[in-house]
């Protein structure tokens, strides 16, 4: 029987990048085309964005997805 794969936990540096660019959640949300609550949920780890939104965020900050999002195994 195959072993159950370990759960992965997504972490992100969105709040750091946002602070570096001196943007409020509202401003970033408007630029990306989502609601402020969604930016808050991503930063807080309550919501994992779709690949499309992740690419949009990476493109907006002129960086790679890996520079914003990373995964680690849940203990």
């Amino acid at each position: 029987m195959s072993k159950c794969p370990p759960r992965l936990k997504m972490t992100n540096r969105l709040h750091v990048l946002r602070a570096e660019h001196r943007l409020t959640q509202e401003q970033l949300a408007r630029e990306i085309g989502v609601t402020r609550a969604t930016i808050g949920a991503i930063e807080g780890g309550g919501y994992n964005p779709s690949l499309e939104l992740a690419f949009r965020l990476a493109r907006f900050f002129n960086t790679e997805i890996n520079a914003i999002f990373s995964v680690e195994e849940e203990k």
Partner: protein
Amino acid sequence: MKRWDSILLKVFLYGLPAVIILAIFSYSYGLGKHSQISDKLTLLNGFVGLTLALWMLLLIYLNIRLMFSGSFRNKVLARITFIKEADEREVMLTGKATKTTFLTSLAILIFLFFLSCFQVSFYRVPPEKAIDGKTRVVSLNFGFNLLKASRKGNPDETMQKTDIFSYTRLPLSSTGVILLLILWQIISYNFSMQRLIKDEHRLR
């Protein structure tokens, strides 16, 4: 949504208070003594009847559009049920809340179906009809009709009996059940949505 539908919807909504007033007038006209009613009032009542008939035709048309037009349904029902899908996160939350609502509604429907099929009664029969000297009887029935059928005379019912407790089918009208289910859908969806948003905040 077609422009025509949008106009008719506005006529329906903005005309609603006027229609209620006209319906009250029509009802009070019906209560009045005909000998005291002037010709002008009779003419006015005819106009009110025509207006109500037109408004009802509009209601039927809008109901048909709700069933067959996807865009009209999305716009009208999404507003009535407070569905918000501003971005992908809200779409995902809506999906989860809708799933919860669908499953709970299905559970309620199954329960109501069971209640509508089930019949139980405790009653006393006269001593001459008693079986083995027992005058207290428990009767359990389970069955359903797909179509409304006229009830045939049951020999048990003609028998002289005193009901102690009797439950025969759901004590709600079909209109009442439909209205309750509509309200349930809206309440359940909004409650699930609130709970999902709270869970999201708790994870932070």
